């Protein structure tokens, strides 16, 4: 009797082949579905990031000023966004890349898709976070217009310019940008704002305007005009040095165009003797912003030569 019961118990735990097959295939389908959903979510995130980065690039087009003055514009996004500003100095012009990550469910959804531009120069920290971003653009001339450069800051960060020279203070005031302030004293600045002091120490960023130096986080960056000074203030040292090299590459290519234009104008009766080769040599020798001063001397020289050619109607730019 006992033996029969034991046998019946053994049959009770037996799983038929049909069940086993269904379970295995069911698990396979579930894994496939979960994998597909994860992939689609990742792709969707990448698409949103890439679209955002491309849109920022397109929105930067109207910032090509054409005039002397600087201008500022506000760009707002619906969710918390992190803009990764990357600069690559390789190639004929180097490359500006933008990557956008957005916060979803309290976590940063990082993407791997960069959108690149050859004709844009954005000076900012490597990662800028917020829902609103200020884009301030200014012409960079060396001595001819090389490009409009863009300074990007988050509305979450305030910058206080202390004892700035009059032309800088006027420019900042006229920009009317929500996160830039001008003050005569450090204690008049908003608490928590980034302090930028001119020709005095003890601030987050110290500018020695007369000699073209910006010191921040223990690093010294060099500038030769106001556009590069703003670049050094608003960007980290790596981005600044890279963008300076890219701007020099573009200046070099523009010098080639002006040199060719000068040659063609000789046929029209213009006797232009401009030292483009030494200017281009100086540009090509720039390794860090410290070398800018040598190139600045050469730029000044061709600038004067161009002005001199203006008397006979032969100016190149």
């Amino acid at each position, binding site marked *: 009797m006992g033996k029969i019961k034991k046998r019946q118990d053994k049959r009770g735990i037996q799983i038929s082949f049909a069940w086993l*097959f269904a379970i295995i295939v069911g698990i396979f389908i579930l894994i496939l579905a979960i994998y597909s959903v994860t992939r689609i979510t990742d792709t969707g995130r990448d698409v949103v990031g890439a679209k955002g980065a491309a849109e920022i690039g*397109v929105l930067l087009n109207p910032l090509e*000023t054409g005039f002397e003055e600087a201008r500022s514009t506000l760009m707002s996004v619906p969710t918390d966004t992190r803009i990764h500003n990357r600069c690559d100095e390789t190639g004929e012009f180097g490359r500006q890349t933008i990557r956008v990550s957005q916060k979803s469910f309290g976590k940063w959804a990082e993407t791997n898709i960069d959108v690149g531009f*050859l*004709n844009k120069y954005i000076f900012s920290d490597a990662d800028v976070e917020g829902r609103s971003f200020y884009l301030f653009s200014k012409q960079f001339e060396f001595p001819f217009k090389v490009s409009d450069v863009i300074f990007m800051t988050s509305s979450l960060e305030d910058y206080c310019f202390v004892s700035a020279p009059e032309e800088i203070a006027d420019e900042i005031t006229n920009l009317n940008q929500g996160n830039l302030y001008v003050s005569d004293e450090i204690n008049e600045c908003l608490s928590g704002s980034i302090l930028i002091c001119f020709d005095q120490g003890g601030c987050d960023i110290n500018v020695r305007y007369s000699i073209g130096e910006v010191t921040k986080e223990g690093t010294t960056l060099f500038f030769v005009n106001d556009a590069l000074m703003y670049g050094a203030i608003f960007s980290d040292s790596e981005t600044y040095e890279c963008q300076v090299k890219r701007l020099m590459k573009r200046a070099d290519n523009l010098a080639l165009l002006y040199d060719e*234009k000068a040659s063609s*104008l000789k046929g029209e009766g*213009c006797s232009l003797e401009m030292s483009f080769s030494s200017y281009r040599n100086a540009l090509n020798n720039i390794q860090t912003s410290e070398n800018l001063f040598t190139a600045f001397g050469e730029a000044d020289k061709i600038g004067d030569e161009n002005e001199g050619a203006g008397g006979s109607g032969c100016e190149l730019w």
Partner: protein
Amino acid sequence: MVRKMKNKKAQMKIQQMAFMLIAVTLFFVFAGLFFAMIVFSDIRKAAEGLEERNALLLVSKLANSPEFACGNAFGSFKTSCIDADKAMALKNNIELYKDLKGNFWGVDGIEIKKIYPTDYAEIECDSGNYPECGKITIFQKQGIGVSNFVALCRKEGSGGFIEDKCELARIMVYYGGDNN
């Protein structure tokens, strides 16, 4: 005999189950493909929209780009003015402005067409016939074009003097081709 019948029934059930599972898998695959198709068609539309907006915004600003702009070279500072001599120099060195991922401005073509006076309007400019020509093709055009009116200026020597000569032109920017 009974055992054989039972075996056949079980085999039938397994076959039914297998077909059902294959059908369910196929259903999910097709549903997924359909969803992906909708998503990717949206991406394509968004990319086309961005390309169009880029071209529209660029064409209104391109004349102020230093590779084209007149700057102060023609008396005073001029906007929406293209320096034809510089544009020709750019055309001659255009290879520098291209890389593996596209060109410097990220568009599918840039062309400057003289509108008035109409002499030589259809003749493409090269170093041999310039300035007796009416078209400067910077990048070979492909796709849809958007345009903007500009002044096309150059310097001309006459009687020992240098004159600034400005004509009416149109700058065309093309997008939607397969250059990029």
